[in-house]
């Protein structure tokens, strides 16, 4: 509201017949409208005009070729929209250099998870430098609220949500539980330095 609205005052002479004007707000008026009888009204002209718009776009899209048309509809699922880079989708588990799981079963992600969707059963590895790994790592994608706190909490870049994929539709609830193998399959080798960068981390710019 503002300047435009006040321009439109009762000094207008064209338009419908004014029956009364509100004393408190002159813009509130009772007017008389004249409508044609149903048998006199015809929408043919308007319909033709609307079809004209549709046809104009149709020919434009057809004639201008695939790369220059105006079609906004995406033919999902053959074609997919690219999500923003930081879109949080399905989880994945990252790999060490040797392909093993990076996760050390520190339990930070199930601790911070507000939806209690992460189940980890830790076990001991033969590697004395790592000691601990998740024997079971399961995420119930139905319970997940996609908050990303697990990724924030992870101290070793083991869990990520950057797959860009939605949780898939499933027929059974238990099919929505992603197992360690499924999570690892989505994963890749992490570029983060294994075991941290040590004391020299400050020198890196």
């Amino acid at each position, binding site marked *: 509201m503002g300047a435009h609205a006040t321009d439109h005052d009762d000094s207008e002479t064209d338009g419908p017949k004014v029956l009364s004007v509100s004393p408190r707000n002159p813009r509130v008026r009772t007017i008389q409208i004249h409508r044609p009888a149903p048998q006199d009204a015809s929408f043919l002209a308007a319909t033709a005009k609307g079809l004209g718009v549709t046809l104009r776009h149709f020919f434009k899209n057809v004639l201008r070729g695939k790369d220059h048309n105006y079609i906004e509809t995406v033919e999902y699922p053959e074609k997919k929209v690219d999500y923003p880079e930081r879109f949080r989708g399905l989880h994945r588990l990252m790999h060490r250099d040797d392909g093993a799981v990076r996760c*050390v*079963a*520190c*339990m*930070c992600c199930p*601790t911070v998870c507000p939806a209690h969707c992460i189940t980890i059963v*830790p*076990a*001991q590895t033969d590697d*004395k*430098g*790592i*000691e*601990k790994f998740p024997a079971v790592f399961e995420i119930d994608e139905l319970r997940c609220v996609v908050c990303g706190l697990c990724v924030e909490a992870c*101290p*070793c870049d083991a869990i990520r949500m950057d797959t860009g994929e939605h949780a898939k539709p499933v027929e059974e609830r238990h099919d929505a539980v992603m197992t360690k193998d499924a999570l690892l399959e989505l994963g890749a080798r992490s570029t983060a330095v294994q075991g941290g960068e*040590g*004391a*020299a981390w*400050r020198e890196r710019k």
Partner: protein
Amino acid sequence: MSDVQPPQPPATVTLTVDGKSVTVPKGTNVLEAAKQVGVDISAFCYHPGLSIAACCRQCLVSIEKAPKLAPSCQTTAGDGMVVHTTDPQSTAARKQMLEFTLVNHPIDCPICDKAGECTLQKLYFENDNANSRVDVPKVHKPKVVDLGPHVVLDAERCILCTRCIRVCDEVAGEHQLEMSHRGAHEELGTAPGARLDNPYSINTVDVCPVGALTAKDFRFTMRAWELEATPSVCNGCATGCNTEIHHRNGRAWRLVPRHNPDVNQYWMCDEGRFTYHELREDRLAVPTSGGLPASWDRALAAAAQQLQAALKTPAQVGVVLSAQASNEENFALAKLAAAWKVPNVFVASRAPVPDRADDILRDADVDPNRHGVAAIAPGALGMAELEAAINTGAIRALVVLGHDLPLSETGQGRLREIDALVVLAWREIGPARAATIALPIAAWAERSGTITNRQGRVQRQHAALPPPGQAVAGWEALVRLAGATGAKLSWTHVRDVHKDMVAAVKAFEGSTWARDVRPIQLRFANSRG
């Protein structure tokens, strides 16, 4: 040390800690005195149950008129002493000591089992929170060293406080751990030719302020912050060590000792710690009738039918109390026997194991409640009489509390010939397998109750876990059984059983029923180290 005698005028000293005046018995150290006025001087090497080493220097405080900072654990509180813990000098000293301790610490908290209950972690967050200024490589030491049957050492995490060495020397009385090398290369290990295999070895894990020593039994199973603690009493022997059950999602994950200066100090034995495993072994979760699962109603109806035939001649009926069950359960069964006018009351108890006895905590008597049941049923007969009564066929019906009925092989065979064998047990072994009717009851960690230890102390076990399946507390199962047989036991809560027991049995005079405790969330508790 924390529960101090009532102060007597000549034997106390008054000192000032951070402006607060505190009066403590003569001989108390400054650290404990400060604790009494709420000043927590955390330290690594000091433990109230051990001798003082003063080697970590984390408890340095300023004492007015003293030439330099003093370790508060080793300094005896003097009259008129003025102690400062927040002055710049001692604060800086403690901060520097912490940085010094952290120089070679691997800071692998994510995979360290102590994380969440670690003194070093706690002090770092409270005091320092700074980055390391050391950029030479850390000294590496052995990891995953197998010290003994129950304990694993990570020498890199060790901060050389020597608490574990003192536990072995002073509590277990065996010199099995030692420091070797010097300076930054100083390292914990077993003494030459020794292994950490004393029966109190896991106490070293409890006292370890960092994650250097971990128990194989608990290691990597649960993070400390996920657990809840419920106070209990060890069911392993007659000593009755005070414990905490650490549990999560209805499952116990470890038992740790709870301080009681009159019973177990700060300690408990390894065997006692493992007793929680049986809570998940061979559990009887539903009533059985003739060896097949049955509903409570059907099992009780069948039990009543079998018992009522025998109860026409009560001399043929026997009742077996249990030296492993709580006082309340035994009292309820003794009451039921009286209501049935059954003259034959026996007590099931295990044979003592003299080999396990020592003069520290472990007792030869492996029944946790022998003294309680003796007070409840003073005239009860023992295992020999029970065996004889079963073998002669004098007993035609038997109501047994508990799964532990150590009979000879003949006796066990004859047990199956008894017309009505009603067993209230939480494990489906021994008599519960032979029973005509078995009723599932809650185990010691799943019900509230008291047990009486060898000193005659009546100690409370709190319910930490839900009983499995359809199991109910023993007293409640007995109330149901009584109702089915037409006898009247009208308790609705275990505290009523306790109240009646205190009124009826002189040995329990003065015993009161404490309220149920809510489990402590270890996530919000201070470090346990």
